[in-house]
């Protein structure tokens, strides 16, 4: 049987700013067989999206398909006219883009948009299409399938939008579906559900799919075969199991190594417990919107959050989007004055707003943002961006300033010539290094790192983490490290705090988070991180699935905000009484009505049920049944 797609010697070129043609995809050939899911994996700039788009005969503006042959369903894609391509796209080949929110028209109801392609191509009557869409909604596990179509894009969550995009793609029963990083923008908990329904929908229909991603662990769940790309050329093509277990190319090994979590944090002596905290946050309440008579904000984001960081250590803050992680950093930096509570720097209470703090207080706390692109002023050269804090805090000028800029660049492993460049000329990783250098220029005691590696490729992000750890060792800076990615936090943090809807759920040492008993939410987060092995997605327990599918619900008052999703909740108590923050013997604070022994027993029971209910799982879970408090491999 002929393959559905056959790509031979594909070459794509792009014109750069000076009008020169650069080859971005060079001599790529592969086949996709019927009913197969093939993954294109690589870092940004590896040409994976470009290749995926060229399967539809599409080249993004500025790029050109310069050579090669793409055969789809016995038709020569690259020699088709625009009209022929239009009749193909959306009907025989469907595309699911990364950003669901940007892919829907906010002014039209969802159902109309989902069935749009079927109406353009006139493959079925409107009534039939609507019925089909509703059955797809049901199949994709969307809530309230009958009525969902009448809602508008802003009324549903990100994970639901992504599933609606898949419904849109599936409605015409295309022969090939291209998924372009469909879950990259989602939380891990949301990702599980989306991946599961995608896989089920494709496999049950026997569809052929191309799955583009940079995340090896996700790809391991989805793909039958993996194509590893780098700089527009194929490094390795093989079945998923072989890529994971017996990689042939060096580059694949690098990718695997970067995806494999490894501890980077410096092992420190326990003597640190006596050292005074560099920063102490006490009972912070902060939010947005109008304040009421007692100064309580209309939309509270942080509710009674306290923490302390000792010099030279790292506190990791994890949570889903909307948990208040970034708000915490903004409160500490004084960008969002807290409604209540206090931030202390070296034992001295700081004014709530940055404008009221002294220059020295400001100098000691620096912030590094997630989006390296927007964190650097594009109209100023690097030398000036780095020079400003030197001048502002240390009064350095002229040659001394230039020398210090060169030193800073050296510190973040960039050449000194970088000082003349503009941010637009730098890569994402380089920009993030400059961001870090700017924070270092102030010679701070604490750097607030807000998702600093989230927007970077795995390999580049790993290099940034290494740099952070090295700098900490050399300069003794404390970090508040915010991330939604457990493995990153695990890699560099001494202590970890888990936030949910602005409440601390668990706070303890890194080691304590590897031990049962865990807060039910911590348990959920840990089990939601995709593992680098096949079959992980299928092996997820029902409890986790149920918990993962709920979104953050903000509750007023001091009751537990995780109540709606929790599998261990006690109705009538958890949702009514204020939840105590208990000190557990493993050395962590956990906010839960359940006691330590209860949590241990319940976790053991849950594991036992799970195993008995799923005898097909051959690989033992890292935490087996009935063993109570023990190490979880993460």
């Amino acid at each position, binding site marked *: 049987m002929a393959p559905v797609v056959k790509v031979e010697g594909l070459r794509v070129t792009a014109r750069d700013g000076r009008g020169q043609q650069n080859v971005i995809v060079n001599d790529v050939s592969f086949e996709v067989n019927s009913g197969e899911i093939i993954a294109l994996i690589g870092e940004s700039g590896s040409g994976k999206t470009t290749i995926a788009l060229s399967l539809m005969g599409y080249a993004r503006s500025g790029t050109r398909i310069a050579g090669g042959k793409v055969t789809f369903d016995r038709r020569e894609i690259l020699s088709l006219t625009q009209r022929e391509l239009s009749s193909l796209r959306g009907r025989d080949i469907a595309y699911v883009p990364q950003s669901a929110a940007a892919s829907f028209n906010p002014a039209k109801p969802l159902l109309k948009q989902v069935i749009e392609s079927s109406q353009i191509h006139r493959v079925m009557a409107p009534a039939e299409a609507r019925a089909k869409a509703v059955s797809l909604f049901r199949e994709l596990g969307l809530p309230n399938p009958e009525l969902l179509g009448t809602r508008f894009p802003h009324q549903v969550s990100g994970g639901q939008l992504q599933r609606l995009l898949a419904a849109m793609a599936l409605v015409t029963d295309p022969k090939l579906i291209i998924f372009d990083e469909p879950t990259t923008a989602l939380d891990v908990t949301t990702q599980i559900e989306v991946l599961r329904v995608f896989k089920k929908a494709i496999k049950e229909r026997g569809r052929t799919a191309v799955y583009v991603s940079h995340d090896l662990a996700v790809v391991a769940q989805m793909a039958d075969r993996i194509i590893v790309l780098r700089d527009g050329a194929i490094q390795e093509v093989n079945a998923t199991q072989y890529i994971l277990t017996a990689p042939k190319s060096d580059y694949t090994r690098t990718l695997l190594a970067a995806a494999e979590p490894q501890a980077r944090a410096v092992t420190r002596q326990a003597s640190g417990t006596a050292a005074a905290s560099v920063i102490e946050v006490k009972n912070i309440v902060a939010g947005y919107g109008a304040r009421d008579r007692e100064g309580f904000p209309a939309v509270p984001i942080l509710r009674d959050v306290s923490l302390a960081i000792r010099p030279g250590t790292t506190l990791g803050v994890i949570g889903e989007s909307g948990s208040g992680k970034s708000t915490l950093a903004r409160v500490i930096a004084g960008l969002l004055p807290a409604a209540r509570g206090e931030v202390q720097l070296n034992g001295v209470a700081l004014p709530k707003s940055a*404008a009221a703090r002294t220059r020295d207080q400001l100098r000691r706390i620096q912030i590094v*943002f997630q989006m390296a692109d927007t*964190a650097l002023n594009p*109209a100023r050269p690097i030398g000036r961006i780095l020079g400003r804090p030197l001048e*502002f805090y240390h009064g350095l000028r002229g040659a001394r300033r230039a020398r210090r800029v060169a030193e800073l660049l050296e510190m973040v492993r960039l*050449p000194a010539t970088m000082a003349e460049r503009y941010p*637009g*000329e730098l890569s994402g990783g380089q920009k993030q290094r400059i961001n870090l250098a700017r924070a270092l220029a102030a010679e701070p005691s604490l750097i607030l790192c807000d998702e600093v590696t989230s927007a970077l490729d795995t390999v580049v992000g790993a290099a940034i983490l290494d740099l952070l750890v090295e700098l900490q060792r050399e300069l003794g800076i404390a970090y508040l490290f915010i991330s939604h990615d457990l493995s990153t936090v695990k890699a560099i943090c001494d202590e970890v705090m888990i936030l949910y809807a602005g409440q601390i759920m668990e706070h303890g040492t890194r080691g304590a988070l590897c031990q049962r008993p865990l807060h039910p939410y911590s348990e959920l987060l840990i089990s939601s991180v995709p593992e680098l092995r096949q079959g992980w997605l299928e092996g997820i327990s029902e409890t986790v699935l149920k918990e993962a599918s709920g979104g953050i619900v903000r509750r007023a008052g001091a009751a537990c905000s995780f109540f709606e999703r929790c599998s261990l909740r006690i109705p009538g108590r958890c949702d009514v009484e204020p939840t105590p923050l208990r000190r557990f013997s493993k050395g962590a604070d956990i906010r839960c009505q359940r006691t330590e022994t209860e949590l241990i027993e319940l976790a053991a029971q849950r594991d036992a049920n799970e195993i008995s209910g799923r005898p097909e799982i051959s690989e033992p879970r890292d935490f087996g049944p009935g063993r109570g408090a023990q190490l979880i491999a993460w």
Partner: protein
Amino acid sequence: MIAAQKAPASARRRLRLPLAGIIGAGIVAFWVLMAIIGPYIAPHDVGALIDNDLFGRMRWGLPLGSDYLGRDVLSRILVGTRYSIGVAAAATFLAILMGGTLGMLAAVSRSAVDMVLSRFFDMLISIPSKMSALVVIAALGSSIPVLIATVAVIYTPGAFRIWRALSVNVNALDFVEVARARGEGTAYLIREEILPNILGPVLTDFGLRFVFAILLLSSLSFLGLGIQPPNADWGSLVRENINGLADGALAVVMPSFAIATLTIGINLVIDNLPGRWSSTGER
């Protein structure tokens, strides 16, 4: 890692204008030069009646013919350049200076300051501009300072709105937040973080507003409230020779042509500015 850090040699930023930009720059430079030297190279006195014909044809000695009183059109245009460009440029500059600065201030300060300034300019913008100009000039009499001030005040709210809208977008970006967390003052935020990043669109706005100012001045002159005789800016030249329109007299065509070339020239330059000066922005 080392290899990844070495980006291709930085392309030197050359200020290269495309052809359309060069043409525009040529036209603008020509008129600016005329504004400076116009009165000295004008072949005749602006007020001198030298032709017996009214709306005389072009001939040797009167290259653009004569106007409705038999005065030399070329001389009158050359002398008028100064008034048209000078008053419009001064007024636009003032409008941008006031509106732009306050617009950026409103965006950076947010909350109360923004509220007060925005509502104030909303109020100003709700007054019909030509009517208020007529009232002001009727009350104070037409003189160049009054004209400049009036036109400047009329265009300030528009400039405020554009500058504020552009600044609000930049103000939301992380690098401004970083500067704020560093403890920078409002003046620094405006000068270093906001202004360089809105230059392109703001220059386009300047060009448009300059053109509007020329048109407003021309229409004021057309009503007889602009530059007073015997001097005349281009707008007044069009008005006073309007009777020649039916005959296609050069006396009315040429000043119109001057207004058209200047406005087109300015827009050509602004639309073709390179790099971060460009209206679309480089990013």
